[in-house]
Structures are given as structure tokens and as C-alpha cells.
């Protein structure tokens, strides 16, 4: 079975500062990795995904993530955040031989002016 650990439950950050959200996973098989964002009182929206190929993945709204197989990590980064990036961020994983998505516990990002 696979599992996902998001290492930070809350990340406060000032506007225009960089942010990194950490995600580690465990799985006995190769995996697909995803980052989803949930804005207040809304459903989840895909930010980016890693399926194969280049380990640096670019997503929407200026986010990117790097897959590191040796460290079993998939950290999310943005070089300069906006107030509108205040949201809950979820890392998720599914084994490549399955379709059940497992989510991490989420990281609350609060951007302050």
C-alpha cells in the first residue's frame, strides 16, 4: 500500500516571498504524483502531476514540483506568492498499477500582505 506524508501542516508566508510545500511518499511500486489545491469553500483543482519523464514539472499559477525518486519526495514550489494563493494544498499518489488516489493530510498556506 502507498502512503503520503505532508511534512508541514501550516505554512504562513508573506506576499511575494517564495514558498515550498514538502511531500514524501512510500510505495513498493512506481507511482504517479499529484498536487491539488483547494480554495476556501471550493472543490479540489489539479495544480500539476508527474507521470514520467522530466522530474521537474510545471503547473498552473506559477507552481512547479520536483520528483526525487531516491528521496521519494515531490515538493511543490512557487517563487513568489500572491494573496490569492491562500488555500489548502494536497499531495496525492497513486500506484502506476492502480487507480486509487491517496491524499496527504494537506498543508494550509496563508499569504499575508
Amino acid at each position: 500500500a502507498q502512503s503520503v506524508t505532508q511534512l508541514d501542516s501550516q505554512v504562513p508566508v508573506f506576499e511575494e516571498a517564495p514558498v515550498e510545500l514538502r511531500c514524501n511518499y512510500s510505495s513498493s511500486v512506481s507511482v504517479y504524483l499529484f498536487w491539488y489545491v483547494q480554495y476556501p469553500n471550493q472543490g479540489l483543482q489539479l495544480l500539476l502531476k508527474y507521470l514520467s519523464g522530466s522530474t521537474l514539472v510545471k503547473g498552473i499559477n506559477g507552481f512547479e514540483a520536483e520528483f526525487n525518486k531516491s528521496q521519494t519526495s515531490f515538493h511543490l514550489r512557487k517563487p513568489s506568492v500572491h494573496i490569492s494563493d491562500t488555500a489548502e494544498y494536497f499531495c496525492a499518489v497513486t500506484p502506476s498499477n492502480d487507480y486509487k488516489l491517496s491524499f496527504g493530510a494537506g498543508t494550509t498556506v496563508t499569504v499575508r500582505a
Partner: protein
Amino acid sequence: DTAVSQTPKYLVTQMGNDKSIKCEQNLGHDTMYWYKQDSKKFLKIMFSYNNKELIINETVPNRFSPKSPDKAHLNLHINSLELGDSAVYFCASSQGPTGSNEQYFGPGTRLTVT
């Protein structure tokens, strides 16, 4: 046009009642899901249907019964509601039941059991 829609958005009811949540997707997807998000925002898969067939059935009390009348709809019926059922329930859909497919989520239904 809303891709994945859920009704109702809010549902307040008393313990012991039976209630249903409806989900519809207009993306032409084959696979639909129900997730439960608890008060700590933890998301857990409950059920998944592919072409109207149940393919994921997690450890969920049998008071919860999903029904898929067609590929575009997946409803969730809950019998004998309990306080612990209070949560936000999300419907999602994807093109097919493979892990590489992005899942598209509805806006959620906030269920409060009193």
C-alpha cells in the same frame, strides 16, 4: 458550464434520517468517485464507479450506498445518519480508471448531522 456539480451544497439534518446527495458530470468521463473530507480536511476515497460498475468500495459503513444510474451520474444515499457522518462529501470524475488520469472535483456537499 459546471463540469462536476453536486446537489445540495449544504445539508443539515437530524440523526437517524436518510438523505441523498446527487452528482452529475458533463465531461463525458467514464469514472466517478465519492470522497469524504473530515473536519481536519483529511480526504478519503469511499467509492468509485466505472461505466456504472462499482470498482472501489472502501471500508465504509453499509449505511452508505452509491448508485450510478448512468455514466454521468453518481448519487450517494445515506441511511440512519449519525453525528460522525458530518463532513464535506466530494464527487469527482476522471476519463477512465487509470492512475494517470486527472480527477475533476465537484464543489462539495457540507453535511451536518445534529
